[in-house]
């Protein structure tokens, strides 16, 4: 089943042409982001609304080192781990002050962090070139072949998604993953059982952010030009929506959610001005009829699925 899905994904681009390969690439990047945020929200149960910040750190990290901005042209494959590390450091940086916060307080502080990063990108002209963005970013090379068309990108992103999904799946079934789930289900009980809550929260933030760092580097290299507006709150919201639509904590759910959420507006494109309108309405309808998502996680329900009660 799994190999059939991977196989059909692999033969898709020649069949659907450049435009849809491009769209599928977009979907793939969102899958990577979704898999990463799912670590934070789905596994560890921490509501993070500022995830786009790490995406931005990864993207600007690569773009600054591989564009005419500073005349530096570090190869993509060298920068990729650096971007992952930068985003992870950003995750830790955000994690430390907010670890003691719970629930909606955490949500709004992370949201604020995302906005701060965007405002800084917008205004730190000497470094980021402000709203004019960074242009002519180098594409990655595989041997001597530049990855510079939608079909080549599709395969690179597909590989990225597979790697991300594999990593997240292994994490979920590891000692760390079980600790996260215990923490998500009942933080106090988990602490009593000897789980170091602060350590595992920090770990969730750091690991979750590193996925976005990789996604950001890929995004920058693929677009060739990035602007602060690419990193608005809407990205965080889209990623969160796709996790919830797919089913919290479930990796196949995240993948399906990305296809539905990012692909659907493309399919609705025929209706042009009613596109976003119907998209908003569909989100509401979806929550009313399938609040736990299309493919909910098979392991226990996430804590966020528990009925709301005052903390």
């Amino acid at each position: 089943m799994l190999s059939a899905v991977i196989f059909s994904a692999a033969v898709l681009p020649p069949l659907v042409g450049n435009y849809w390969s491009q769209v599928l690439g977009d979907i793939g990047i969102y899958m990577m982001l979704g898999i990463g945020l799912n670590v934070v929200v789905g596994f560890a149960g921490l509501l993070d609304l500022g995830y786009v910040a790490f995406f931005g750190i990864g993207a600007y990290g690569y773009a600054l080192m591989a564009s005419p901005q500073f005349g530096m042209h570090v190869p993509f494959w060298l920068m990729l781990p650096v971007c992952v590390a930068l985003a992870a450091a950003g995750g830790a940086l955000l994690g430390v002050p907010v670890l003691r916060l719970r629930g909606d307080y955490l949500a709004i502080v992370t949201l604020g962090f995302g906005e701060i990063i965007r405002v800084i990108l917008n205004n730190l002209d000497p470094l980021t070139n402000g709203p004019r963005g960074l242009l002519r970013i180098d594409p990655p090379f595989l041997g001597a072949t530049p990855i510079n068309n939608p079909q080549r990108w599709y395969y690179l992103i597909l590989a990225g998604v597979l790697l991300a999904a594999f990593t997240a799946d292994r994490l979920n079934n590891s000692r760390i993953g079980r600790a996260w789930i215990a923490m998500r289900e009942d933080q106090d009980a988990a602490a009593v059982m000897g789980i170091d809550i602060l350590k595992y929260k920090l770990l969730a933030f750091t690991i979750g952010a590193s996925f976005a760092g990789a996604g950001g580097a890929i995004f920058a290299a693929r677009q060739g030009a990035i602007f602060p507006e690419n990193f608005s709150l809407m990205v965080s919201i889209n990623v969160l929506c796709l996790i919830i639509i797919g089913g919290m904590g479930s990796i196949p759910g995240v993948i399906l959610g990305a296809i539905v959420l990012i692909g659907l507006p493309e399919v609705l494109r025929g209706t042009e001005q009613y596109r976003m309108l119907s998209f908003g309405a569909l989100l509401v309808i979806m929550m009313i009829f399938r609040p736990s998502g299309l493919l909910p996680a098979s392991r226990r329900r996430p804590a966020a699925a528990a009925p709301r009660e005052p903390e």
Partner: protein
Amino acid sequence: MEAFFSAAILCDQLINGLTIGGIYALIALGYTLVYGILFMINFAHGEIFMFGSFAGYAALTFLLQYGFTEQRPLASILAAFLAAMVVSALLGTILERIAYRPLRRASRLAPLISAIGASIFLQNVMLIIIKGRMQVYPDLLHETFFEIGWFNISNFQIMIILGSFFLMAGLYIFIQRTRTGRAMRAVAEDRSAAALMGIDVNRIIMITFVIGSALAAAAGVMVGMYYTQINHMMGFIPGIKAFTAAVLGGIGNVPGAMLGGLFLGLAEAFGVLFMPAQYKDVIAFALLVLVLIFRPRGILGEVVSEKV
């Protein structure tokens, strides 16, 4: 060491801060009232504010066509506020009925996503109505400045500061002194116990949405008259700022939202004296992070022991 800023500048920023703070506080009240009862972030609240602003705009434009605004400017402004508050209250009620009520027993995140969906939907409804063009509020009051000592205050600012304080005082008295207000507090405290005492919980939740939405609509008309230009995205940033203000004050806490709004407005107004204006939004969030590190439940938030 010489003084950095003259007293006149400080007084100007005090007035600016109170004006913006009053607006933030009015919007923040809607977040906090709903959160206090349903424990959900009403993400579409900024859009209710936006619809209120447009309803006030429609009312003023209508009155302007019939020359009514010339004869009775103050009555026209009152009519605009009333129209905005009625439209937004209706919208809030419909929103609660369709998008939130079916999800009351669902997971924590489902209503949040539903609210985000409703927010995108409402933005695009307005985008289609106004055909993507920015609208300009009719200028009725003709901005004039008064000098009172060091203070230099415009008639708009007087209207906003007095109006928001009047509405806040009204709300506080309503919640503290009336039967319905007492019922609201009871539902916020313990929904099932309140239901057992014979309170119609659905009705109270509806009233909460009506009040919160009407306050946001009043803020919407104030913003429209003060900044003159309005568009379909205008609810987004004030919505986030007001939510920040509600969290600053301690979410679910009514005086906290008022205090948080004024605090945020003043902090932004005085903050721009020390750093470039583009970083204004950073001030709000940096402040939020700082406050929450030292008081994780906001300025007036109560310390509630966790349920085990």
